[in-house]
């Protein structure tokens, strides 16, 4: 019995040290690409596809602003998803629909390009269903990878 208690203590201490205890560092994910806007857009869309997602749309905000008489540098929003995954997910969790598909904001800044997105890990705060936690954390890892590719190229 004494030995069992000892090993339980060891396991408990070990468990406390596992990464699952680490706090998820959400908020915004922002990266700067040294590439000009068009090139960065191309790299981004390629990175999204390579990560297994489909680009479902690109919103040309700059164009809309220009047509309405407002001056703007290049500014787009890129939407992406795994369509089948989103379809079945939103069947069971329609409250996620307003936040999907995932998106990355891309805008030009003095010959470079900035990319911003909200960290999908923040969905863990927004939607409390524990069954979604693994999915949100996978999205987090995927989005970080995508952003990293754009930053590094």
């Amino acid at each position, binding site marked *: 019995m004494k030995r069992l208690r000892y090993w339980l203590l060891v396991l408990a201490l*070990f468990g406390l040290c596992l990464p699952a205890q680490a706090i998820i560092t959400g908020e915004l994910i922002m990266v700067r690409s040294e590439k000009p806007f068009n090139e960065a857009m191309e790299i981004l869309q390629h990175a999204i596809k390579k990560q297994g997602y489909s680009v479902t749309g690109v*919103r040309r905000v700059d164009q809309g602003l220009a047509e309405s008489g407002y001056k703007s540098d290049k500014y787009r929003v890129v939407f992406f998803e795994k369509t089948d995954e989103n379809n079945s997910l939103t069947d069971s969790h329609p409250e996620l629909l*307003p936040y999907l598909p995932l998106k990355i904001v891309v805008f030009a800044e003095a010959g470079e390009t900035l990319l*911003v997105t909200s960290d999908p890990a923040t969905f863990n705060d927004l939607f409390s269903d524990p069954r979604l936690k693994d999915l949100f954390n996978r999205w987090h890892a995927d989005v970080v990878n995508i952003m990293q590719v754009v930053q590094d190229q």
Partner: protein
Amino acid sequence: MFSLASKLALLIVLLLGAFPSLAADGEKLFLEKCAICHGREGQGGVGIPLALESFLAQTPDEYIHRTIRVGRPGRVMPSFYRLSESEIAAIIKHIRGWQKTPVPEWDATPVQGDAKSGKALFDTHCVSCHGKDARGGKGTGLMFSRPRDLPIAPPSLNNQGFLNSVSDQMLKTIITQGRKHTPMPPASQFGLKADDVNNLVSYIRSFQITTMTGEHMLEEEAIIMHRSPHSFDQTLENVKRAVVDNQFELISFKLGDKHASDKSAHRKKATVNFCNYKMINDALAIDPRIGMFLPCQITIVESFSGVEVMSINPKRLSQLFNNDKLDQACQQMHDTYSQIIREATQ
């Protein structure tokens, strides 16, 4: 079966094996969270050059810690309130690695000075760079770009994040010594004495009106949602009409695929996208990242229990930005979404 020594050895091996996974990677975190503004090597850009020797020589760890924790409200510097203490410590360690200068430690003694005299001195010697009422030079962290006529944007000294991070003694040191390799000169260049510096510190401190904890109250709901008494098709038409009635341009609407099986709780889905470019233009002037709120969108979902109309809650998303002005815009957007959804479900 096992000796005490072998048990202890095993325990240590297990713990050591686990600890590397806990150790935060300061460089990785810096590149992910900070490099976009401060540069990959801390050389600066929109954010101040953190690798500057004179900066690190005057800046205690506590200042960097507080700055990361509370950010600069109203500026692009966010509050990284989710970072753990060990992650912040790792970022600071990474920043410190750029210079061998010793880490300063200032005592917490408040500086005693005359804020009124300080204001007169400020208006004479500091206002040309730090702006009226210490609000900062043009482009100070408001956008991701800034004028390049100075190597660094003069900081906003009346920012509550700055005032909640800096100690009086640190301020006094910066004013007294200036900051090498930046346009910030030492006080002696203007003939200012120790009392004058104290007065300036008191004047700058007089702008502090809040005590920030860096803890955010995430109490808003994630979505705005109303149940509709109408059919799915009627509700969709109502949403489209309400969008236009509320001065938005209807961009598109998309019906979701009818892929759901009979067992699925939800059958039809539709999204209505709309826009008001004046609103976008105004919001971009507040923060260039507002594209994350786009497109303006209302979603309609039919389930066996009825039709629901929903949107993001801009007030909840706004909490990611640490920007009071954006909070106001998001309050307006929240009210507008609520109005559209109410009108569509009446």
